[in-house]
């Protein structure tokens, strides 16, 4: 395989605390060398002047519609969006039709991804059959088939005994349990954050307690079982102290947040804007600021896109009836770079949440530019301003909560195992 040399580029690698303008050689699909380099014959040279080279992103929460809802998104279409956004590994959720609760289905996802997707795709498998029962799936067989962790996706496990057993059984293998922590009874028929705005709009609110009650329960069960636990998405300031305490007590607890919750707040659903209808819901501005602060302190480990494609018919509905979710895999990186520019959070810190930390939590060898690591890399113009337009995004579905948002940071090229999977066309 021919080699590529990136010259005069700002190399940013959180895992090695590296931030330097230098050169980087990719050979045989891995990071070969960093530093003062001289190009050999027949090496491709890419001038990275003015750009940054970062590890390809690992997006820990992506829904596609394959299998079952291919009109919303396929693994192929999601991967094109991912590549355009600098994401080289998508962790896909099991809430498909059928649900990924059987080893053969894990195998199906892996093979479909290999044959059709341009990025890496790694499935999480369901914790319980159908994501809605109390019967555990075959954790060992699913792991051997390639499931990287266990989650019921956007379904919560309401039965505490089932969750206890899931955690206990998962800890046999030191498998990671990922949970959408939401008490469905308190969630009830809610469609947005509970507060003044929901009252004014006449919409049913979802109290922050719906999340904190479930997190509190889960953390007790973590203490009971010793399981490795990842809170898929936190949305409320009130949820943070319990997570911090569990960490202080030595429990292996990590947590994620969606990029939407770092950039938007509940006011974005004003005028019944259903594109901003998310689960967990967008909370108040003080919650958003608390999440941003927790991210800067490292209390929040991971930022996800929570990419959730929904077709127009599912979204262009009265707010109550509209589906939850927003696409986002293509805008995850630009969201984080914008956050860096707007809130002044250190670049390595924000990038760590989509590279080093998800790799560590999931046990992946990607997410770093260490010598010998797979050459999953993204070349990005950190300063480039643009306006997100859902119609221009590659996803099959156009339900972007960040539609019309002014952002900074644009992916110029993206490589998986040293092979280009996206290169921005030169301006005419």
């Amino acid at each position, binding site marked *: 395989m021919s080699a590529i040399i990136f010259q005069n580029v700002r190399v940013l690698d959180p895992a090695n605390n590296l931030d330097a303008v230098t050169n980087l050689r990719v050979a045989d699909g891995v990071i070969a060398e960093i530093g003062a380099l001289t190009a050999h014959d027949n090496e491709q040279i890419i001038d990275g002047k003015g750009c940054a080279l970062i590890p390809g992103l690992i997006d820990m929460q992506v829904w596609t519609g394959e299998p079952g809802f291919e009109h919303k998104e396929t693994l192929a279409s999601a991967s094109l969006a991912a590549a355009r956004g600098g994401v080289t590994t998508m962790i896909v959720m099991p809430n498909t039709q059928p649900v990924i609760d059987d080893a053969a289905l894990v195998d199906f996802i892996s093979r479909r991804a290999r044959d059709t997707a341009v990025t890496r795709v790694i499935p999480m498998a369901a914790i319980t059959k159908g994501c809605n029962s109390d019967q555990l799936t075959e954790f060992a067989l699913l792991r051997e088939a390639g499931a990287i962790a266990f989650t019921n996706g956007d379904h919560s496990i309401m039965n505490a005994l089932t969750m206890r057993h899931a955690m206990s059984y998962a800890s046999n293998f030191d498998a990671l349990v990922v949970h959408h922590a939401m008490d469905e009874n308190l969630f009830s028929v809610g469609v947005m954050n509970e507060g*003044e705005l929901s009252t*004014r709009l006449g919409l049913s609110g979802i109290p922050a307690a719906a999340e904190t009650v479930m997190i509190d329960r889960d953390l007790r069960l973590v203490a009971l079982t010793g399981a490795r636990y990842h809170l898929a998405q936190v949305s409320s300031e009130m949820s943070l102290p319990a997570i911090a305490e569990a960490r202080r007590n030595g429990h292996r607890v990590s947590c994620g947040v969606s990029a939407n919750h770092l950039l938007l707040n509940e006011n974005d659903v004003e005028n019944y804007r259903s594109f901003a209808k998310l689960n967990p819901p967008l909370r108040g501005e003080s919650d958003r600021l608390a999440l941003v602060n927790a991210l800067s302190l490292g209390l929040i480990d991971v930022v996800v896109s929570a990419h959730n494609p929904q077709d127009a018919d599912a979204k262009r509905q009265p707010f109550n009836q509209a589906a939850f979710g927003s696409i986002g895999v293509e805008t995850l990186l630009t969201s984080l770079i914008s956050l860096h520019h707007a809130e002044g959070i250190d670049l390595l810190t924000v990038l760590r949440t989509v590279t080093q930390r998800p790799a560590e939590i999931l046990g992946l060898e990607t997410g770093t530019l260490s010598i010998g690591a797979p050459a999953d890399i993204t070349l990005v113009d950190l300063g480039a301003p643009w306006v997100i337009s859902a119609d221009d995004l590659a996803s099959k579905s156009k339900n972007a909560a960040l539609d019309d948002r002014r952002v900074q940071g644009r992916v110029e090229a993206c490589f998986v195992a040293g092979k280009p999977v996206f290169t921005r066309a030169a301006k005419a």
Partner: protein
Amino acid sequence: MASNTEISAFPHRHLLGIHGLSQQDIMTLLDKADHYVSLNRQQNKKSDALRGRTQINLFFESSTRTQSSFELAGKRLGADVMNMSVASSAMNKGETLIDTAVTLNAMNPDLIVVRHGDSGAVALLAQKVSCAVLNAGDGAHEHPTQALLDALTIRNRLGRLNGLKVAICGDIAHSRVARSNIALLNIMGSQVNLIGPKTLIPKDVDRLGARVFHSMRQGLAGCDIIMMLRVQHERMSGNLIPSTREYYHLYGLDDEKLSYAKPDALVMHPGPMNRGVEIDSSVADHPTKSLIRDQVEMGVAVRMAALELLAGNLDGASL
């Protein structure tokens, strides 16, 4: 927006809620409605203000009084009025609200009156049509003509809408009538007390401009007007209220609870009433204190005023 070059008396294309109206807008509507109150009491109740106009009443939620009130209002103004209820509409066949809007719009109506069970649904529909849209109630959001008819009823009895103390009692959480009335009374300069059990008071509702009470004795003290809200039967069977008996004991308006308010306090109810649940018959039927029948009469007049003012802003309307 008005297509006329002159500034319209009522500068709104739709009537989607009280939120967004000015004090002047409300006065314009009420003054116009007053004119129709007189007309409606004559033998010949017909006007030709909407002659040639087509009005569609599109009701996704069943309604007797609001729908017939709008129908009568349109007919008295000379419009062709068509009623569409959800039972006979394509929405039951899976058509989306937006598709329904586009389909109806192709029939070139001038005014569409919409009631829908979801908050914001009427505004969504209004984005997709080229005619004027009147909100006849959307979810728990707004019911502007109800608040306007309540205002007209109060103004005709007391001569003013400012400086009053108005209690709204009952299921505030699920009530669009409450939200529209809170907005209107705030705009007009009156004070609003909300009274109900904590399970039926929505979060942070005080920030909408109201005081919140959980006891009738405290909430009714000094009130000029008491608006009772209907309690839906389905709330009784859940865990919001234990029983109708308990609700009536705490919040049902009877003569004793009425005595907590000002001696000459007046009682209103948007209907239909649950006698013996939220209101006692002796109060509901009181010859001088109850305004409930006045409200129904004012309803037709207010809707005539709203229809006429919106029609006046349509393209091609004569000045």
